[in-house]
């Protein structure tokens, strides 16, 4: 069936709303309802996954809606009883849940912005006093915002079967002078702007703008500052334990920093470099246990699907135990992040990155453009060399080492992305990603098997519970082993396409100021 027409237009202020109402009442039979004030809450994940897909999720009157950026509802709204929505898997089964789940994945919905909305509904009636169109006058006020000026708009809704009335009123609004469309996206932007924010003000993707003639120290500091910023932004979410990805992003920033300290050599003062290599190693260590457990807990549904019904009970015990362990580790992590040691590291690192000392720049090092070429070439060569050495008989270890090399190459491509043409860099990163996915999966499957094996060894024999867990873990191990064999078999083709002449030529072309990669 044809969707109902709806239009939304901006009005300058509250008095324009009243003028419009008066105007309509002169010409039409209007039933005017009392204004109603409700709160309108926008939700998205911390990293704006819904917005990035063109979705807006909001709650009003205990109903959760999913709309496009204009504000048209995409699926029927869902009744939620007063509580804030969290993870998609906890929502009642519905079309809305089906839309949200694959986009949000493991991320929780967070309140991004709140309005108080006052609406006044004017029903336009025909001579039978039947409603033939609805006009809604709306005033939005940003809750706790600094600006008190409301966003005023008018919405016209078609009633099915009364298209002509809609058209007539549309002309009426045009004559009144409401030229600018009003969308939900704009509402959201205004609300965020009132707090100095914008949509997508957090992204887990790394991006800094460098210039080829920048001094290496300035460039390196820019990179590290951005990474430190990411860590700071995720801190609170880790402390509040909102979802697993705060810690994940936090750890990626740590790893990138460590990688940077290793790869961008002789740029920072040796003492500084040595100290923070050690400090960031420490940060990696204290954040590790919770992340490891998170990885398994996120696998729960996947593992469940791998085992038959009679092994599910044992699996359930296993995950119960993991959840218990995680609770303890999370407590330790929170202590770690609140410790003076952590605070000192972050404070000192931040202070150092903000310092602008001329003396360091004076040293005769090539500009970052040249240095980046050299670093990338070196990493690329290393991946090529190690990858080519791998045969079907090579030990698993060799793939794990290649994975680390791949990661380093990826990080430096991302660090220096802004120095090169975007289109080509995108292609290189995509190509590398395919190799990384294969190696990453292979590694994940190894780590999982190791973990399950050591868990199995630690089970106290004798109890029925332990038996059930043992059976479930045994079943999983078989599954994971076969899966890993398959991933390994796919490695050769994946690497072959990564090391194609075409790809090598592209690397040469982009980073050619350094020596040629070996053939």
């Amino acid at each position, binding site marked *: *069936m*044809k969707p*109902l027409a709806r239009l939304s237009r901006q009005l300058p202020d509250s008095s324009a709303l009243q003028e419009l109402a008066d105007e309509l009442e002169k010409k039409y039979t209007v039933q005017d309802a009392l204004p109603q004030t409700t709160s309108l809450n926008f939700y998205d994940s911390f990293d704006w996954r819904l917005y990035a897909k063109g979705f807006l999720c909001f709650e009003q009157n205990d*109903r959760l809606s999913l709309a496009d950026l204009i504000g048209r509802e995409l699926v*029927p*709204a869902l*009744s939620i009883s007063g509580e804030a929505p969290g993870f998609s898997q906890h929502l009642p089964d519905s079309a809305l849940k089906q839309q949200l789940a694959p986009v949000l994945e493991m991320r929780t919905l967070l309140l991004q912005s709140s309005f108080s909305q006052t609406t006044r509904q004017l*029903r336009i009636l025909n001579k*039978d*006093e*039947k*409603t033939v169109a609805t006009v809604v006058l709306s005033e939005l006020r940003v809750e706790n915002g600094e600006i008190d000026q409301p966003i005023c708009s008018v919405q016209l809704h*078609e*009633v*099915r*079967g*009364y298209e002509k009335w809609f058209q007539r009123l549309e002309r009426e609004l045009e004559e009144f002078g409401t030229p600018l469309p009003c969308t939900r996206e704009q509402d959201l932007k205004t609300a965020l702007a009132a707090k100095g924010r914008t949509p997508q003000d957090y992204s887990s993707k790394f991006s800094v703008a460098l210039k080829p003639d920048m001094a290496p120290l300035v460039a390196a500091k820019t990179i590290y500052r951005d990474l430190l910023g990411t860590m700071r932004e995720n801190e609170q979410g880790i402390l509040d334990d909102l979802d697993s990805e705060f810690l994940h992003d936090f750890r990626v920033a740590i790893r990138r920093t460590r990688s940077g300290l290793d790869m961008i050599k002789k740029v920072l003062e040796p003492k500084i470099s040595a100290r923070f290599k050690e400090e960031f190693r420490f940060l990696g260590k204290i954040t590790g246990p919770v992340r490891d457990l998170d990885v398994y807990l996120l696998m729960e549904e996947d593992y469940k699907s791998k085992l038959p019904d009679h092994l599910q009970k044992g699996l359930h015990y296993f995950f119960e135990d993991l959840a218990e362990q995680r609770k303890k580790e999370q407590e330790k992590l929170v202590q770690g992040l609140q410790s003076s040691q952590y605070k000192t590291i972050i404070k000192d690192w931040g202070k150092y990155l903000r310092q602008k000392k001329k003396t360091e720049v004076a040293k005769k090092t090539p500009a970052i453009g040249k240095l980046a070429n050299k670093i990338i070439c070196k990493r690329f060569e290393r991946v090529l060399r190690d990858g080519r050495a791998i045969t079907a008989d090579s030990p698993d270890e060799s793939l794990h080492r290649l994975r680390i090399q791949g990661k380093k190459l990826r990080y430096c491509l991302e660090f220096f992305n802004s120095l090169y043409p975007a289109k080509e860099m995108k292609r290189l990163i995509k190509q590398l990603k395919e190799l990384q996915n294969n190696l990453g999966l292979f590694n994940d499957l190894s780590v999982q098997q190791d973990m399950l094996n050591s868990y199995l060894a630690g089970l106290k024999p004798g109890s029925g519970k332990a038996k059930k867990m043992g059976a479930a873990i045994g079943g999983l191990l078989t599954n994971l082993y076969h899966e890993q064999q398959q991933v390994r078999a796919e490695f050769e083709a994946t690497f072959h396409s990564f090391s194609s002449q075409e790809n090598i030529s592209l690397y040469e072309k982009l980073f050619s100021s350094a020596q040629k990669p070996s053939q």
Partner: protein
Amino acid sequence: MAIIAVYNIKGGVGKTATSVNLSYMSAATGNNTLLCDLDPQGSSSYYFRVKSKKKFSADHFLEGGNSLERSIRGTDYEHLDILPADFSYRNLDIALNHMKKSRKRLERVLDPLTAEYRHVFLDCPPNITLLSENIFYAADMILIPFIPTTLSMLSFTKLLEFFKESGIDRRKLFVVFSMVEQKKTIHQDTMQHFKGRKRILNTFIPYVTDIEKMGIYRQPVPAYRPDSKAGQTYAELWREIEENLLSHLD
């Protein structure tokens, strides 16, 4: 989608009031709902202040598709649309008679609406004809408003027999006592007789002036008097029906 037919072989049993108020309740609880007024008298349409298009007729209705969809009207209530009746519906039977697969025609007409509506209510004309047979086939639930008297019982028995003969699933049938005057012994006795039986709904609709007044207000009772006894009754009745629908459809 579930198709709920409100039907009785007899007239004046509160069919239209039941259709109007229940379809309103269905919509008010968040379900996209369509009320098809199949009674040529068009009382449901009257309650919602809707008239059919000049070009719409029984033939258009049976043709289905676009010409039917274009005749659907929004009511004054969110999630509730109505397909208004047309006086030509008095000829629906004759038109059906001339068609192939005449017993299952309605099912085909209603099928495309599945995507749009969660519940479709059919306010049916009183009689047993080819149209009623069509309704019985198409419906997932046949709700029979029933004044608890001896004569009503007689017609209900007849209907059950008809179902049996035609091989239609009798589990679709549900009885709701309607226009119940609790002071009348005959009403009390009849209800007592049926109490606790399968497919007799627990909630009954009392004979009250608020329902009679629908004609004046031209609004569903739960819309203009949600806290009245009648308003509450329809809300309760809808809850009971939804439960039955869910268990029946699963």
